[in-house]
């Protein structure tokens, strides 16, 4: 396996970020979203992902100044326009006091310096109950909540190792059983465990070995299926490993799937339709592309790429 050249890795993210920046007004909450709690949750998830992505770009310090400006504009737009300076999250917490969603979205924004004391009080109130620790959720999401608490400087409401042990990846089952939803459980477990790549050393060695062994098989398969959204997340996982492959073959396929303007389709070719429709369909894989690029470029510039 040959590692992809840093210029290729970088270009994917540069294009993706430009595309997102030019369309930042399309990250929006519709009236319907605001009227129904569920709509808000669905719309807030990409906002959280956006914030996390931008934080990674800033942290990795691999983006050029133009990219940094893009990421700051996107982040400010998310905080000011979409979240109304955090008021929207506080309102959501008031409507649903035990919801972990505001915490999950706020943690990254907080880390980047945005503050909403009222929201923090509401999160504290939820955390003071036994109910908070008893909330039922997917094990990989539990890891995300614990990580969000840690990022806010709070004592995590559960044990990270126990939460990991409850995930699919934590049990290291037969790799040939992985299907689409299992693959996303794996990627999210790695994202939350490593704090979105900030702390790759939080991957226990046996899990890092397991991923190094089987990730190439999963990547090859979803590359053949042209599932760019998942391939992008798997490329992020690769970049989180102690010795990433940054496999040139995979990155070339991935880069070739990107539109000239920088958008990444979910699967197969770019969809057609109105700009809004296209944006709604491809903003997630395009965010992933920016994220994967930042992570991989950073790792390529360090010396620990697998042979």
């Amino acid at each position, binding site marked *: 396996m040959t590692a992809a050249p840093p210029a290729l890795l970088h270009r994917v993210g540069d294009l993706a970020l430009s595309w997102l920046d030019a369309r930042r007004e399309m990250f929006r909450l519709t009236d319907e979203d605001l009227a129904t709690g569920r709509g808000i949750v669905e719309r807030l998830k990409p906002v959280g992902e956006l914030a996390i992505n931008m934080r990674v770009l800033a942290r990795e310090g691999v983006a050029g100044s133009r990219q940094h400006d893009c990421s700051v504009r996107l982040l400010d737009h998310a905080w000011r326009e979409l979240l109304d300076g955090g008021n929207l999250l506080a309102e959501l917490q008031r409507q649903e006091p035990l919801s972990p969603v505001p915490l999950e979205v706020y943690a990254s924004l907080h880390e980047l310096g945005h503050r909403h004391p009222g929201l923090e009080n509401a999160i504290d109130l939820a955390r003071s109950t036994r109910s908070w620790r008893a909330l039922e959720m997917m094990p990989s999401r539990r890891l995300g909540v614990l990580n969000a608490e840690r990022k806010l400087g709070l004592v995590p409401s559960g044990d990270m190792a126990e939460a990991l042990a409850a995930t699919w990846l934590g049990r*290291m089952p037969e790799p*040939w059983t992985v299907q689409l939803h299992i693959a996303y459980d794996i990627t999210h477990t790695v994202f939350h465990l490593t704090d979105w790549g900030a702390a790759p050393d939080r991957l226990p060695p046996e899990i890092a070995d397991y991923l190094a*062994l*089987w990730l190439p*098989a999963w990547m*090859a398969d979803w590359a053949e299926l042209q599932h760019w959204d998942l391939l992008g997340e798997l490329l992020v996982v690769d970049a989180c490993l102690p010795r990433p492959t940054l496999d040139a073959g995979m990155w070339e396929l991935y880069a070739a799937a990107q539109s000239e303007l920088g958008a990444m389709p979910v699967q197969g070719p770019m969809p057609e339709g109105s700009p809004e429709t296209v944006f709604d369909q491809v903003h997630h894989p395009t965010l992933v592309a920016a994220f994967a690029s930042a992570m991989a470029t950073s790792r390529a510039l360090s010396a620990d790429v697998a042979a």
Partner: protein
Amino acid sequence: MLAEQAQENSSLSTVVADVANGVALALDGEGGSYALSALLAQDDAVALAAVRVLGADVLAPYALGAPPGGGPDEQVVRKALAAYPPGADASEVSVWSYRGLVEASRAFLPAGGDWPDTPQAGAAWLQTDPWPRLTHRASQLAALALPGLAPALAAGLAARTEDLARGFVRAVRRRDWLQAAGAGRWLARVPDVPQSLGLDAGLVYVRRMSGGDPRVALHAAAARRFHLRGPR
């Protein structure tokens, strides 16, 4: 002409399936005593082609230590070798497969003596193939996983256990049960197959999911009988 060809192809796959089924039953310890010639209604071109397709596996039950095959088996194998020798431009897989049948004939058929020479088969791919292609070829040559055959091939593949294991995962994901079963059969031979692969469960899964494909069943049965892996 096309219809004729299609008919020939379909009857070839039928005969291949019948013979594979007979071999799998014999390896599973069912169906009484084994004789290749008894599985072939006649030794026409299609039957000989089927022998060539399955290669060394047509003699697999004799590798269990049962009495070696008799004269009729020997005749049909000789005819198959004569009818379908690898040409000058044959693929490496075809040469290896032919070689496997010659080696198995020497080992498991009584006559000895004048079997064709074993042709030199290219082996560089064992080192150079990327893992998906390596797995594809290895799986096509799974009949050579019989004990004692093609030691160089076995050693070359044993040096790439992790790559074959990845190929097994990819093949299952692609629902290519035959490729998965062939790769799994090679993996069943080696002691250092990654524990997290779950090879035993994998072989059971592949055999079930194949919906009774006799060639898949043959590989799974061989993995169990010769290497104690997979379906119990």
